[in-house]
């Protein structure tokens, strides 16, 4: 598990050290894309081999939809009060609500 986090952190450090070598940019982007495709392909193979999961794909889809609704509702619920406290101006900078109310008065 920690090897994954170490790889990620190592990547950030490596990326910072490569910032001036712009020739690397497309290779990194294409490399990431192909790795994701390969790994999703392997995930698909694992799923294809597992007849139990395949048989329950519809119920897993329904379960996923309910989890998605929970995640979306939770994040909107936590963010909703913030638009009353922090109000962005036209440039996207935040103004404290009290301060802006004071300006209007």
């Amino acid at each position, binding site marked *: 598990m*920690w*090897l994954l986090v170490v790889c990620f952190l190592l990547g*950030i450090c490596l990326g910072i050290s490569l910032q001036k070598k712009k020739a690397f940019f497309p290779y990194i982007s294409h490399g990431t894309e192909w790795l994701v495709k390969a*790994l*999703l392909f392997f995930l698909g*193979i*694992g799923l294809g081999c597992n007849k139990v999961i395949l048989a329950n794909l519809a119920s897993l889809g329904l379960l996923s939809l309910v989890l*998605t609704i929970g995640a979306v509702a939770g994040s909107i619920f936590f963010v909703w009060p913030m638009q009353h406290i922090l109000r962005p101006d036209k440039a*996207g900078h935040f103004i404290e609500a009290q301060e802006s109310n004071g300006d209007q008065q």
Partner: protein
Amino acid sequence: MKATLGLLFCFILGIGVGYWQLLPQAMLEGDHVFYLLCLLLLFVGIGIGIDTKTLRSMAQSQWQAMVIPFAVGLGSLLGSGLVGWILPGIGFNDGVAVGAGFGYYSLSSILLTQLRGETLGVIALLSNIMRELLTIFFTPYMVRFFGPLAPIASGGATSMDTTLPIIHKYVGTKMTVVAVLNGIVLSMAVPFLIPFLAG
């Protein structure tokens, strides 16, 4: 959308190959998928580190803008955890782990497959794709009923790329910076949070 379809094609192709057993069993055994995943995280890290614009926009952002991704993240984890706790066969921990994908379906599904097995990996893939689709289809209603931050919260990690055009269209330029920052912070959090929560 084209990129999403490309990834879905690879996934469906894999299901076909696995179902009809078109690859020799020896190729499917071993730790090669784990090493590929390590390589992917290395590449994702390089992509973040090499992108000076991303790092600069994070350094220059106001503290208020940084609060939003934290609220989105916390809400997402608690929301999916609570639903997972109620649903049979999922549980709070697995619900939280799926919610920690924040819409980053490729990485979260691959990580959860490695750490918790194929069933949760598939749920993470479907759930996070649905999150992106819900944002694309329901942004106008979210803005109308819950305000301009709602589609940014819903989009999660995708608010900096795939759902940004629709957010920009219905929320306007003033929230674009917030949406991008939200996406950057949440995308960076996924490789840390999932191994921590599901490991």
